[in-house]
């Protein structure tokens, strides 16, 4: 029995933390295409009626400023990260599928790992599946069915393997982390977003 379930959204700048939260919980957090806009940790108390289950009284969602904006900003935001991660029950690490650069994720994970509560539920939200690159002549994201194309579907397992190896390299055995804790989705079109929500709340 917990009175408060704290779920922290964390990740690189531009990965889509705020957009994901907006879509997941019908919020209205500011988003921007080019310039980082979440400058402080934003707490959102979700209305009980919708998310209440037998174990939880209150759900608190925390939207963190993104990492990797610049070296100065990273330093400046560090106290927010430290405060909130210590209290988190669930940490949703948002990262994007349409990149191959995860070093900054690793650097921060390494820095923050010692703050992770032992029973932290760690999820990787693999956003922007719709932007997964395809070769010339192959289909991109299917706008009619709002789902990935066949070419994109075929890339997802390879992508998850790659991300898993990179994160596992740092996490080790500090918290439980398995391949099925990596959830591919797209906030922009909503594909698999419900699955992400389910995953977050199965452990609440």
């Amino acid at each position, binding site marked *: 029995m917990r009175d408060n379930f704290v779920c922290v959204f964390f990740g690189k700048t531009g990965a889509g933390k705020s957009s994901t939260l907006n879509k997941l919980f019908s919020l209205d957090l500011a988003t921007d*295409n*080019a310039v980082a806009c979440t400058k402080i940790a934003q707490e959102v108390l979700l209305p009980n009626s919708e998310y209440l289950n037998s174990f939880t009284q209150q759900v608190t969602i925390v939207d963190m400023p993104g990492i990797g904006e610049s*070296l100065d900003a990273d330093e400046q935001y560090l106290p927010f990260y430290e405060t909130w991660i210590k209290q988190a029950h669930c940490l949703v690490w948002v990262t994007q599928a349409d990149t*191959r650069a995860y070093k900054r994720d*690793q*650097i921060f994970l390494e820095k923050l790992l010692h703050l992770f509560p032992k029973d932290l539920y760690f999820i990787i939200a693999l956003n922007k599946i719709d932007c997964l690159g*395809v070769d010339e002549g192959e289909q991109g994201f299917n706008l009619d069915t709002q789902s990935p194309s066949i070419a994109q579907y075929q890339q997802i397992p390879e992508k998850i393997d790659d991300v898993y190896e*990179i994160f596992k390299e740092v996490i080790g055995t500090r918290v439980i982390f398995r391949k099925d804790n990596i959830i591919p989705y797209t906030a922009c079109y909503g594909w698999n977003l419900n699955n992400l929500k389910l995953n977050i709340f199965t452990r609440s």
Partner: protein
Amino acid sequence: MFGFEKSTLRIVVGLNQVDKIVPNGWDMRLNAPSKAAEKEIERRCIEPSQVEFYSALKRYRLIPLISTVTRYAFAGFKLDNVEPADPFELADKDVQEFVAQQLSKDGGKSLKSPTKDHLFEEMSKYLSRDELNLVRKKFAQEKQIPPKVAVFGKTGVGKTTTINSLFNANWKTSHTVVGTTDAQIKEFELQSGGTLEIIDLPGYGVSLSKDRGYEKLYQEHIPSCDLVLLIIQANSRDFSDDQEMLGKVVEWVKKAPTPVR
């Protein structure tokens, strides 16, 4: 953000993928950014002298990019026969006619820069014949070695794609897993004359262990280059990796004010 001294360093920053800077920001008909995208580009490129925005995939602004590369390359003199793109090519007809008229008036003089022959003529006034011959010989020797350009940047920003678009290179690219894992080197003839040696370096930022492995490779190649073309991604905001790496590159380049061979 990328505060390096103007024109003294042989580094050019290329802002790739401007076609994706905002969703639906590309005008397919004009093959150019939409009004909204243009505004975003302006917001990002505040110091445009050594920064060029382009899209390798859309073949957009490749000529300005290659012009800037040759302009800031250390051994730009080797490419003295490079003809810059006609700036009036896409202008209205009456403008083109006016330009042609003006050019025929002064015999095309204003477009020509002093050639190396003038330079040698000038030198002959001060140097003995033997000395001048030595300079000529050195010059000829040096010209045999094409300027070396390192294409550098975070993984997945489109380094190899940029090379493919610029030189029709057909080098292998990949969407999901890391494409380039070793330095690829090749010489390319420029359409406008001259030759460039291009080094495609594996991208940084993949993981801590990979970056440690690559750093040696970078340090080995970058000081020997006439120019470092650092490519960053227009539709991205995480520039910490780039900032960190640019700091190192600036240091390496400063330590080797002329390319080390």
